Structure formats: C-alpha cells, structure tokens
C-alpha cells in the first residue's frame, strides 16, 4: 500500500495546479448539491412548522358580510371531511388598498385589517415587539404586521405605516410583527392586526368580510370540498355569492410557500449537475492525458513488477485524495452556505421557519461525490492494463500516430498559427469532444439564464407581453350592472387620457364543451382587438366576426385545437359554435378572446364592466388615479353604499403595478438563481480551460521548446494553443445556444411565445467565445517558462 501511496503523492506533486483546480470543481459540486438538498429539507419545513407554530387553521373562505349567513357555519360543521371550524370578522380592501413604502412610493397590495380577538379565532399570533404593553397602549393608531413587512418591506417597530384606500389616507405606528399563513405575504395580501377603534374607523371605507376557517386533515378535502361547501352556501342563501369573496386553501398556501424556494434550489441543483458532468469529463481527460504522458514510466513500473491494478489504484487514490479533501472543505462550506440559503428561502417565500441545517443530505452528498470520483477514476485508470513493459523501451510508440496528416502546413493560406491550432484540434478530437460537452452544458446554462434574466429581471415588459391580458395604465372595474360606455366616454374627454377601451372584468363564466369534458372559461371582450396593446396572436389572427374566438396557447394545446377548428361555448343553456381564428400567448389558460358582437350571440344581455385607460406620455399614473378617485368619489361601490348614477366603480387598478409587486419574490429568486448560475458556469468553464491548457502545455513541453528554438515566440505559441479550443468553443456555443432555445421552447410551449433577444444572445455567444479564449490564453501562460535550453538536457 505504501508504494501505491508514494506513486499517488508523486503524481499529485507533479500536477499541483490541476489537483487544486479539480479540487475546486469537486468542492463546488459538494457545496452546491449538499447545501441545496439541505436547504430543500429546510424549505419543506417552512410550511408545516409555520402551521404548527401559528396554530393556524388550514383553509379560509372569506365572504362579504352582506352575503354571509350564520347557517354557513352549520353547513360546514355537518360536512364529514371538515374537522374544526371557526369564524372571524375582517376588513379586506383587496387591490384598492395601497401603502406608501419606505421609498415614498405607492405600492398596491391587498390589505386586510383584523382585531386581535378576531385574529385569535383564525390562529395564535405570537407578537414580536420591543415595546411594552404600556407603550403600545399609548400609541394612537398601532398596527401589528406580518413578518414579510419586516423582511421585504423593511419596516421596524416605531415606524409609520401609511395606508391609502381610494382617496383616504390612514397612518399607523408599527408596534410589532407576527407570523401568519393566512394573508402573510405580498402575493396573497397582508393582514394587519389593529385596535378595535381603528377597525371601526376603517370599516367605513373597507368592505367587511366574514372569514370561515376550517381544518380538513391537512388539505385532504382540497378544492372539491371548498367547491362543495361554496355551492351549498349559494344553494342555502338562494343567491350567487359576490365574486369578491375569496378563499385560501391548504394546498394553495403550501404550493405558494414551496414554489419560489424550489425554483431557486432547482437552479442550484441544475448547476451542480453541470459541475458534476464537468468533473467527470475532466477526471477522464486528466487520467487519460497523464497515462499517455507517463506511458514510459508505467512501462518501467511494470517492468519493475508493479501490477496494472496497483498502478490503477494509485491513480484512483490520487483522485480519492483530491475528492476527499474537496468533500471535507465542501461539507464545511455547506454548513456555512445552507443557513444563507435557508434565509434566502425565507425571504423568497416571505415566511419564516426554515429551521436549522440538516446534516444528513450534506454527508450523503459528500459520500456520493466521493464514490462517483472513485468509480470514474477507476474506469479510466484501468486502461493502464493495455500497456506492456515494452512501451518503456519504445518510448510509448504504441501511442504514436501513423494516420493521415490533417491540415498539412503546405496548404497554409493565412496564418500558420491558425493552421497549427486546427491541427491540434483534430489531433485531440476525442479530448475536444469532452471539452465540447462541458462547454455546451455551460453555454446552455448561460444562454438559458440570460433569456430568463431578460424576461424576469430586465424590467417586466417581457413578462407583461406573455400575460395574455390587456395591460393598460389603469383599469376601472365597475359593478356588473353598470354601463361602462358612459364612464368610457367621460374618461376619453379628459386631457390626460390617450385612449379608453371598454372590456370585460371576468364576471361572466362561459362553458367550453370539448371532447375532454366541459371547462369554465372567462371571456376577454373588446369591440376591436386591433385597438389592444398587449394581446398578440402568435398563430392566426384576432377574432373579427361574431362567430370567431381566439384561444390561449395553453388551452389550444390542452384541448388539441388548432386555428380553423370549431369550439362550442355554452352559457345558461345557450350553445353556440365558434371558429378559432387565432392563438395567443398567455401565462395560463381559462380565458378566451371574443368580440363584443361575438359574446352578444351567446350572452345577449352582456355589458362591458371594465374600462381600460391609456394615459398620455408623462402623465403620472398615481396622480391620475387620485384625480379620478376624487372626481368619481360618489360613484364608488362601497360595502354599504348603493349604486349612484349610471355606473358604480368597484376598483381602480394598476395591473402592472400589482403584477410587479406580486412578482417580487419570483423575480428575486430568479435573479439570485440566474446570477449564481451564470457566475458558476463561468467559473466552471474557466477552471476546465485552465486544467486543459495546463495539461496540454505539460504534455507538449518538448514540442514548444523545439518551436521556440525555431523562432516561435511565447505569445505565438500561447496563441496557437489557445486557438485550438476555439473550434470546440464555436461548436459548443452554437449547439448550446440551439439546445437552450429548444429548452426554452419546450418550457414555454404551453404558454405561447417569449420574444428572445436574438441580437443579445449573439452578443452573449461572442462574449462566451472571447471569455473562453482569454481563459485558455491565460491557461497557457506556462509556455513562457519553457526554455529552449531544456533541449540541452535531452
């Protein structure tokens, strides 16, 4: 064993740089996989732990107080799947509530307000505050906020929180924070605990709801139970419950909390896989190169009596030593990185409770990587079996080429250095395939990240473009019986307004009759779709006639419908056939696009109930919203108010702003993930090229010395060697880009089309090419140290 260890250590001493580079790759691999897996376990805990710690109910149905009936609770209680129920009163402003954030900007976020007593009916809030009860009691208007307002909103105890509802502003002093699953994040909304007096004050402007909370054994009843209960409520009350009622189920909360964290962690694991593949290719390349380089020594060792297995084991041991050190450092790193990832997960999911680091996945990762490295090294090193001792005396003749001379120098047309590079590329084709695999994977990662980054992080225009809905500057939603036309005409007269488009606010559900079953769908109605600015057909055209509709790509794929097919729509027993005139991109299905005349065929009493407002350039959206809130203050549809005039405004919404607020955590996750992905891809490519170039320089040391003797300068030789990876990189960049486009296409196939910035990708590809060349050029720097005098010692 001692002699094997000696052989391994001698090898390590000879290849210190490659040893360290591979160590870094393996360490990164352990670090990423270990901490990502450990963080996944932590992320898994957030929801159940938060559920346990807050004592929260599992499902919540919030019904406008006017629609609520005490008997609903009995209906729930009698259902066999419902285990426990509770109810509470709460004010819920929905998207009409905004607040002034720490930067002084207005942020639209659904806000609800509840008293401490009512809150206790839904959960056991544990208030985190630095103030005493006495200090709190002295505050005129205090508020306890969900932790998300501490973490993302940057609020602290004692800060002023300014809430806006329609034209009214309310000021509170932040008295503490608490964890809550029900309305405790930016996406679903935030729930504030306020004093009884403030609750009554807010009740004048914010509609009151009754929250019916129930447990169904960790979401066993799911959506079906909710639907059944809801139908029973409507059946009992004999009327349709207002669409402004909303629900939050166990599965929704669990999904929301997990989704963003998983997105980040999946990106990290994908990156780790890229590194694992690179490590495999590099180990194979390193051992093969080393054996070739040392074929004479191997022959001598065999002549001295070393067996193939002993020599193989010495190689395996060398790589196991490297992997062992990397695994130890990587695992230590995991224990430091995982808490950061866990905290990041908490920030992304906007809830606390990731818990501590789980050591098991970290240890298992370390073990797995160690075994993988050992197996790969063994499979490759066993090739020493084919070398007989005679190779020592033939100076490795067995490895010499007798084949065709590729790119003969006599055919040189331009630069002899390029010619040398091409010769080198062809001579090491097998090695270059490995390099191509590594770089291709990294290019896929980088290009994919770039496209995702452009969509998510470079402003939100790209996301808006794939929503499939019309996103004007402001949308005024009306009570369904209102006449949107009158309001539209009035708004159009205002100098700040460029254009208005009456449309539908998704209050009408139409059933699509498909071979796979019937589905409820919402119509998006316009007089003329050519007037829209954010709906784009990706196949066919907009509906123009009253017998045409346009579908989302998602629905078209789902129902296997193509442009030109017919589809039957039904509403209250009336069935009409429509031709699919086009398909559009959309983030989800469930909506279809139809003209006003078209919907009238199916729903004769249909009326527009929403007005899209497009403002002139330079008009501030918030200022204009304030203006129309003031102007139409008597037309607002309040919880207790009656319709005034020809229309009643229910909400004035800036959908873009709402989307941007709701996408904050997703954008953050994507930004972090993509940045890590791109950086690590670059680091991996850099290390691979360094290893490759260092090995090449060592293997061709004598050749370079001869060429220096002939008058080639160090820079020319460095250029030649660096150029020899260029064909591999070009092929990898092209293949990698095409694969990443295919992956993107595959992912978005259901949604429609993402406009890929082709020129940006081309620039990125050129940057990758230059980066690779520079890394390779730098990696060849040891050519400078090669002296012609080395030939003297031959």
């Amino acid at each position, binding site marked *: 064993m001692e002699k094997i260890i000696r052989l391994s250590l001698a090898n390590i001493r000879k290849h210190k740089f490659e040893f360290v580079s591979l160590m870094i790759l393996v360490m990164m691999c352990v670090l990423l996989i270990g901490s990502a897996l450990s963080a996944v376990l932590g992320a898994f805990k957030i929801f159940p732990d938060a559920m346990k710690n807050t004592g929260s109910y599992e499902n919540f149905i919030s019904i406008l107080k006017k629609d609520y009936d005490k008997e609903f609770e009995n209906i729930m209680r009698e259902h066999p799947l419902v285990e426990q129920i509770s109810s509470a009163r709460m004010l819920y402003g929905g998207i009409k509530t905004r607040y002034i954030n720490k930067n002084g900007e207005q942020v639209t976020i659904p806000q609800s307000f509840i008293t401490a007593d009512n809150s206790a009916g839904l959960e056991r809030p544990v208030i985190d505050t630095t103030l005493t009860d006495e200090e709190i009691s002295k505050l005129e208007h205090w508020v306890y906020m969900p932790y998300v307002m501490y973490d993302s909103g940057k609020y602290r105890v004692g800060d002023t929180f300014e809430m806006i509802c329609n034209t009214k502003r309310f000021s509170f002093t932040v008295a503490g924070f608490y964890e809550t699953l029900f309305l405790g994040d930016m996406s679903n909304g935030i729930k504030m605990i306020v004093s009884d007096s403030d609750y009554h004050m807010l009740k004048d402007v914010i509609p009151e709801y009754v929250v019916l909370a129930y447990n169904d054994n960790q979401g066993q009843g799911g959506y079906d139970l909710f639907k059944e209960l809801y139908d029973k409520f409507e059946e009992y009350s004999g009327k349709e419950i207002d669409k402004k009622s909303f629900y939050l189920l166990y599965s929704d909360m669990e999904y929301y909390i997990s989704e963003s964290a998983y997105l980040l962690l999946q990106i990290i694991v994908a990156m780790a896989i890229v590194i694992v593949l690179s490590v495999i290719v590099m180990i194979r390349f390193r051992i093969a190169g080393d054996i070739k380089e040392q074929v004479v020594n191997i022959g001598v060792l065999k002549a001295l009596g070393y067996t193939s297995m002993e020599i193989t084991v010495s190689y395996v041991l060398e790589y196991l030593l490297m992997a062992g050190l990397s695994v130890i450092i990587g695992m230590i790193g995991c224990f430091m990185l995982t808490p950061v990832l866990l905290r990041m997960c908490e920030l992304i999911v906007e809830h606390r409770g990731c818990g501590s680091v789980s050591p098991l996945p970290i240890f298992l990762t370390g073990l797995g990587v160690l075994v993988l490295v050992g197996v790969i090294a063994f499979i490759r090193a066993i090739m020493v079996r084919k070398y007989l001792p005679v190779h020592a005396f033939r100076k490795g003749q067995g490895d010499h080429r007798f084949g065709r*001379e590729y790119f003969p*120098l*006599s055919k040189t047309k331009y630069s*002899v250095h390029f010619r040398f590079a091409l*010769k080198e590329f062809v*001579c090491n084709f097998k090695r270059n395939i490995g390099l191509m695999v590594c770089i291709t994977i990294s290019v896929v990662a980088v290009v994919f990240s770039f496209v995702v980054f452009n969509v998510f992080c470079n402003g939100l225009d790209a996301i808006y473009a794939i929503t499939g809905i019309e996103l004007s500057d402001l949308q005024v939603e009306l009570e369904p019986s209102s006449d949107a036309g009158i309001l539209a005409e009035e708004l159009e007269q205002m100098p700040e307004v460029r254009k208005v488009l009456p449309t539908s606010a998704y209050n009408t559900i139409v059933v699509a009759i498909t071979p796979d079953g019937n589905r409820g769908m919402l119509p998006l109605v316009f007089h003329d779709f050519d007037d829209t600015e954010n709906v784009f057909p990706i196949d066919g055209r907009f509906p123009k006639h009253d017998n045409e509709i346009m579908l989302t790509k998602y629905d078209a794929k789902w129902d296997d419908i193509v442009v030109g097919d017919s589809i039957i729509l039904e509403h209250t027993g009336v069935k009409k056939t429509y031709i699919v005139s086009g398909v559009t991109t959309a983030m989800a299905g469930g909506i279809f696009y139809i003209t006003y005349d078209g919907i009238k065929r199916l729903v004769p009493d249909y009326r527009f109930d929403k007005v899209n407002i497009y403002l002139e350039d330079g008009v501030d959206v918030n200022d204009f919203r304030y203006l129309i809130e003031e102007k139409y203050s008597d037309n607002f549809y309040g919880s207790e108010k009656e319709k005034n005039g020809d229309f009643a405004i229910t909400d004035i919404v800036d959908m873009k702003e709402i989307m941007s607020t709701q996408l904050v955590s997703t954008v953050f996750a994507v930004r972090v993930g993509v940045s890590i992905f791109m950086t690590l891809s670059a680091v991996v490519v850099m290390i691979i090229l360094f290893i490759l170039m260092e090995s090449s320089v060592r293997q061709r040391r004598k050749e370079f010395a*001869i060429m220096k003797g002939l008058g080639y300068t160090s820079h020319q030789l460095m250029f030649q060697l660096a150029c020899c990876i260029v064909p591999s990189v070009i092929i990898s960049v092209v293949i990698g880009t095409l694969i990443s486009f295919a992956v993107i296409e595959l992912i978005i196939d259901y949604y429609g089309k993402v406009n890929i910035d082709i020129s940006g990708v081309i620039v990125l590809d050129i940057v990758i090419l230059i980066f690779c060349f520079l890394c390779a050029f730098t990696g060849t720097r040891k050519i400078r140290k090669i002296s012609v005098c080395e030939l*003297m010692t031959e």
Partner: protein
Amino acid sequence: MNSSILHTKKLCKTFSNSGTQQHVIKNLDLEIYKGDFTVIMGSSGSGKTTLLYALSGMDKPTLGKVYFGEEDISAYSNDELAVFRRNHCGFVFQSIHLLESMNVFDNVMTGALVLQKNSPELIRKVEELLIKVGITKEMWGKYPNQLSGGECQRVGIVRAVINDPQILFADEPTGSLNSASGRDVMDIFTQLHSNGQSIVMVTHDVRTAMRGNRVIFISDGAVVGEYKMPLYSKDDMTSRKDGLQNFLDRMGW
C-alpha cells in the same frame, strides 16, 4: 579574413544549484566569422554546448555581451531572442528534436512558416532541399518515428536551413547516429559550407571536426586554443587529421 558575424565580450554563464554556483563560461571573448565552419571542441563539461546556446540566443548569458554584428543580443527579451533566431539562425540538435506529431514535410514547413509566407516557391524549395539531402518523396508523409536516425537528422538539417539563416548552429549533429549516417550528415554540412553557409558546430568527434576550417578548443569555460585549417577536401584527409590531432593533443584532449 572574413568579417565578424558574431562576437562575445567577457561572456560568463553561471548555473546555480542548491546554493552552489557553477561557472561554466568565464569571461570568454570570441569572434565568429562569416563563411567560416567553426567547430567548438572540448572535454565533457568544458562548456562548449553552453557556449553554443549563448551564442545562438537560445540562452542568456549571466554576464558579458553577445553581439550579432553590432547588435547586442544579450540584452534581448525572450521574445526578441525568438525573433532573432527565426531571422538569422538555424539549429541542428544532437537529439534531432523533430516534432513527433507532424510528418516530415510539415516538420520542415514548421520551420519555414515561422518566417516566410506559404507560396509555391517555398513548397518547391522544401521539396528540392529534401531531395537534395536524400529524403525521397515517399518519406515526406512519414512521421519521425517511422524514419531512421540519419533520415531524421537530414530532415532536421533541412528544417534548419530552410530560411537561409546567416548562421547555422549544430550541437553534436552526429552524436546519436551511426558512422555511416553521421558521414552522410556531415557531407551535407560540408556542402552547405562550401556554398558559403556560416556554421558553428559543437562536437567531440575528430572526424566530424575535420569538416570545419576553424577549431576552437575550450577548457573550463575559456578558449584555450584555436586551430585553422583549409577548406575541407577529401584529398588531404591524412594531413588534415594529423594536424588537428596534434592540436588536440597539445590542448590535452
């Protein structure tokens, strides 16, 4: 007397190894003349190869100067030395040092293309030179390990002279060859010299040294003797050999 092409002033070369310094060349002053076939001789470890490498810009002196014409090449950077070598020098090594990954033709072309642009004239020149040294067309596509040592050295010579160097350096060019191959190789050197090529060659073989017209003897890193001969001719072999042998005997050979 021919004009000087290369000269040294107080040339010193010292190697350090584990704290001990070995002064291989000591304050050496030497002049190499254009058109001469200068042979450097000396016992093992006398510093003859070190001197050759210092003269040719393969290595930098520790102290002193090496002048190519009026140009001080001892002050050149490594890359400047490479340019100097490509423009003015050709090399023939004892171990031949052909590029094993390239065939015969490309080995020569590697030397040619470092200085010249590829052209039909260049290709023709390579072909002619190869034929001239006895490397037939059938061998052009062969790799070095498919050739004999003598054949390889002949290819090495063609590679060295393909750019018409002003001075050709040779370090024991027959050292690794059998006597027949060695003779063939030296015939080529003689032919080159008779065509006016300046040659500086290191050897410890008297038969090889006889091809030169000036023999410099080195001992302990210093020039201790010089012997001049007429141009090589097969007719006066005996007197040539005796004269050189006498000189070497005096030098303590």
